[in-house]
């Protein structure tokens, strides 16, 4: 399979909140990277995971499918999944695929973290 052209960095904000910075392309080939980042973010006990799409360059339908599987996994673990940094284009895709019903979407990381702390 082709290599994923994506970099995911996990930042622990508090004991209960972690951020995954997504840089590059979210396609089906990014499965290992996304699942590894999610595991890393939650292994320390985080109950809120924020996906920061500020550096997202490209996403296809397989990439959206990956987000669905991460969301279901988070829901089953009782974790809250949030997103920030989405451009209008990607917000529309979240709307079209109904991901916006299940993932809290915020304009900035600060807004999302404030909501997670509330």
């Amino acid at each position, binding site marked *: 399979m082709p290599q994923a052209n994506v970099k995911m960095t996990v930042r622990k904000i508090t004991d209960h909140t972690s951020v995954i910075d997504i840089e590059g392309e979210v396609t089906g080939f990014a499965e290992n990277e996304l699942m590894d980042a999610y595991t890393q973010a939650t292994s320390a006990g985080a109950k809120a995971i924020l996906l920061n799409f500020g550096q997202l360059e490209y996403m296809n339908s397989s990439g959206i499918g990956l987000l669905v599987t991460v969301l279901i996994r988070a829901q089953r673990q009782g974790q809250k999944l949030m997103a920030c940094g989405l451009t209008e284009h990607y917000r529309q895709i979240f709307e079209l695929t*109904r991901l916006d019903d299940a993932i809290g979407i915020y304009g900035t990381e600060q807004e999302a973290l404030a909501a997670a702390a509330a």
Partner: protein
Amino acid sequence: MNENVPVNQTTKQPRDAANWAKSGENLKVGELPREATNLNVEGRRVVGPLEGFGQLWQKTYRVRLSGTSVTPTEVVKVWKEHFPEFQPPSNRFYPSVAGVQPGEVVMINAMTPGGPVSTGVMVLYSDEESFTLMTPQGHPESGWVTFSAFEEDGVTVAQVQSLARANDPIYEMAFRLIGASMQEQIWTHVLTSLARHYDVQGAVSVQKTCVDPKLQWSGFKNLRHNAQIITLLYTLGTPFRWVFSRGKKA
């Protein structure tokens, strides 16, 4: 990355912008061949894998196109152009005049053990190496299917991957009884036909994962859109519509 760095609010369109259907519009069916039944799609909205009723399954079907020099881009181009031809005879697909383009509707007239069903799908996404069809309300499934090709160890692989759950309780029961295996036969047939197009006798591999075993009881009300029931009632009403239309003409 620093948390104080402004997030990406640029107005520049990303590379994938033209590949996606637009959101917020109900489905519109274009011109169809006379033999196609246009039911259960017009005015409906598309529904994703987070909606619906049944268990959420991801199923991946693959065939290796060994012995050919065809590229993934060439495979997907042919796949889009000949999409209805690769289907089993019981599944009639009617793409719009525009073809497999984002936002376009593909009507489906299929024959199932439960009788005929008229439904359709919308092209959610399309690029040179993949395209994705998303289901509308009333379709047996809530979710999408992605058709793609990629290179693995120097061989082009064609793949069908579905991420979907049954749309309502009747469909869920039907999938558990017979529908799931029928669906596997359909996608296996499609990949086998595609491989045969390149003179390849490839074996199709299937990988199934239950992503969410829970039933979504909020999806019970989706029964009111059930395309199978509506198609059956429409079919039963055909003689009455014929008599009524003759009466009006007289």
